[in-house]
């Protein structure tokens, strides 16, 4: 190793110089400092003031969500603006939006793991947490939109008093199995990844309460290499299983639309288009969370500029896939020669919901283009703004798909328009409250960076020569 190489290891790890290997973790860190940096967030006697403010807002919104759900259940779905034929509105828009957010977490934890993308270790833990919380928000909406929620168990293949079984040809039932499996597997993956890090917190505990609580959660992990051997194998297997699973989940969500006959929904491009959109929207949420967290909690050495830059590149790539899908949808509606299809797409772009369509195009296709510039990719403010834009755009994408098609189907006499009520608006806001409440609790009580995984990709300490 020459002197020149040492000089060139700078704290800017976004260099594209192919002769220098960019460090995954910024130089000046060792195993102990990684533990210290991650654990002190959880071990500090009090969280930063910003945490209290954010938690107060998020918890209040969660309360609003609870009130809205209670109002809905006690009164009926008439409190929402749904009608015939627009029987899906904010509810399913929010469901698809939240379940899509989750996909980035699984992509980072499973797919990037299989592809040996070592940089993922800095961000996988909190991205997986994001997945869990987003799927919880997602599961809420199909749960409450059915109207008589006390009959929800009908969807499960359980023996009941009617001697009937669910219809397994329905994509809505596939969805129940897909999202349920997704939640369970993501939870296993997330918790399993956390066991060694919770053991670290247990071993550093200074109070009995912490030692017992983390002790129970760590399941008695003691770093045994015989355990690590099976653990790593289980991790690889889970990554291998979660990879097709995550692709299947949003494909099946898209089947809810694609297997119907409605113009604008009945399209073979839907599964890959939805998966790309989910990863796009999910990475935007990861960036939205990572940019403030890394500076509030002093994790800039672990979640480095290179991590942000890589994620920006993924955002740019998936954004263009989504843009391509938008264009192809238009092309196919013309090429099919089907007048109903053609009308739906003209109506999307120039009809009563044109404002929503162009918001979607601007946010999802235009704004990510700034990431062609390296300066934009390394500016946290720009990243945050674009990520926020993409989240808005991806919500509108689902709104446009659902509402423009339902409100204008084959028969003009059954056309109707949809506008949400205040209850739907507050329920959407409340779902963000629930998501951020859970995420803030996670930041406060659990290790937000996978310490053991980060240590495993750090360069080994200097090897003393033995004879």
């Amino acid at each position: 190793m020459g002197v020149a190489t040492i000089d060139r290891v700078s704290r800017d790890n976004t260099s594209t110089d192919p002769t220098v290997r960019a460090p995954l973790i910024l130089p000046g860190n060792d195993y102990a400092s990684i533990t210290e940096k991650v654990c002190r967030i959880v071990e500090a006697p009090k969280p930063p003031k910003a945490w209290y403010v954010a938690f107060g807002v998020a918890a209040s919104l969660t309360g609003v969500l609870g009130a809205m759900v209670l109002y809905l259940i006690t009164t009926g779905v008439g409190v929402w603006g749904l009608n015939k034929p627009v029987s899906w509105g904010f509810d399913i828009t929010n469901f698809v939006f939240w379940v899509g957010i989750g996909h980035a977490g699984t992509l980072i934890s499973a797919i990037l793991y299989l592809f040996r993308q070592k940089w993922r270790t800095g961000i996988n833990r909190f991205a997986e947490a994001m997945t869990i919380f987003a799927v919880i928000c997602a599961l809420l909406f199909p749960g409450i939109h059915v109207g008589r929620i006390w009959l929800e168990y009908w969807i499960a293949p359980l023996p009941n008093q009617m001697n009937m079984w669910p219809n397994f040809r329905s994509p809505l039932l596939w969805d129940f199995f897909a999202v349920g499996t997704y939640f369970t597997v993501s939870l296993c993956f997330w918790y399993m990844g956390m066991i060694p890090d919770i053991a670290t917190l247990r071993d550093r505990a200074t109070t009995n309460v912490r030692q017992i609580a983390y002790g129970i959660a760590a399941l008695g992990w003691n770093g045994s290499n015989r355990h690590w051997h099976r653990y790593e194998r289980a991790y690889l297997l889970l990554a291998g299983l979660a990879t097709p699973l995550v692709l299947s989940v949003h494909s099946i969500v898209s089947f809810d639309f694609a297997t119907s006959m409605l113009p604008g929904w009945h399209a073979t491009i839907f599964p890959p288009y939805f998966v790309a959109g989910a990863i796009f929207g999910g990475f935007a949420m990861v960036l939205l969370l990572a940019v403030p967290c890394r500076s509030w909690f002093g994790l800039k050495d672990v979640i480095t500029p290179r991590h942000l830059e890589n994620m920006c590149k993924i955002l740019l790539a998936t954004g263009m896939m989504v843009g391509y899908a938008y264009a192809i949808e238009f092309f196919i509606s013309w090429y099919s020669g089907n007048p109903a299809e053609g009308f739906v797409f003209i109506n999307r772009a120039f009809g009563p919901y044109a404002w929503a369509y162009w918001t979607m195009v601007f946010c999802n296709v235009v704004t990510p283009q700034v990431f062609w510039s390296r300066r934009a990719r390394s500016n946290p403010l720009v990243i945050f703004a674009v990520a926020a834009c993409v989240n808005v755009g991806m919500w509108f994408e689902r709104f446009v798909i659902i509402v423009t098609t339902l409100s204008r189907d084959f028969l003009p006499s059954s056309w109707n328009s949809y506008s949400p009520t205040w209850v739907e608006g507050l329920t959407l806001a409340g779902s963000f409250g629930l998501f951020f409440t859970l995420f803030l609790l996670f930041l406060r009580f659990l290790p937000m960076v996978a310490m053991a995984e980060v240590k495993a990709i750090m360069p080994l300490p200097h090897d003393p020569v033995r004879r």
Partner: protein
Amino acid sequence: MTAVGNEKGKLWGLLAEFASPQDLVRAAARVRDAGYTKWDAHTPFPVHGLDGAMGIRTTRLPFFVLAAGVVGTASGLLMQWWMNAIDYPLIISGKPFNSLPADIPVTFELTVLLASLTAFIGMLVLNALPRFHHPLFRNVAFRRATTDAFFLAIEATDPRFDLERTEQLLVLEHATRVFPVEG
């Protein structure tokens, strides 16, 4: 329960600390070659090369996961066939009662669900976790095993265990500290 064992307590084994993962891997190969069987390494992260140095046989976990996946596939197919074609045939847009293509999504999800749960629970069961007490937890220095310390522990019940000779072996292999641990 002191950090350092005393003569009165029953000896559980010896715990040796190493300065680096590389030292630990070399020591592990020596301990393996010396014929010890009841011993283990404890590290904050999985150390590359340690499995081989310890002579760990590849786990059977993947076979359990495969079996669970097959059970998931079979039960998914059987359940949907029996429910929708036999026990309560549903006429849906003139499709055959046993419509295999429509059964694939649920079958796939059940396959992944059972295989994943088996990977997670199987890992814990094969590792004999949860286990909330371990003699090593009595050693205060061992708490750094989950932060930045590299340990090797040999149990006193190992047939080759001899307090003096085993300690000598560990010291010769550049252990920075060797602690007796009470059972």
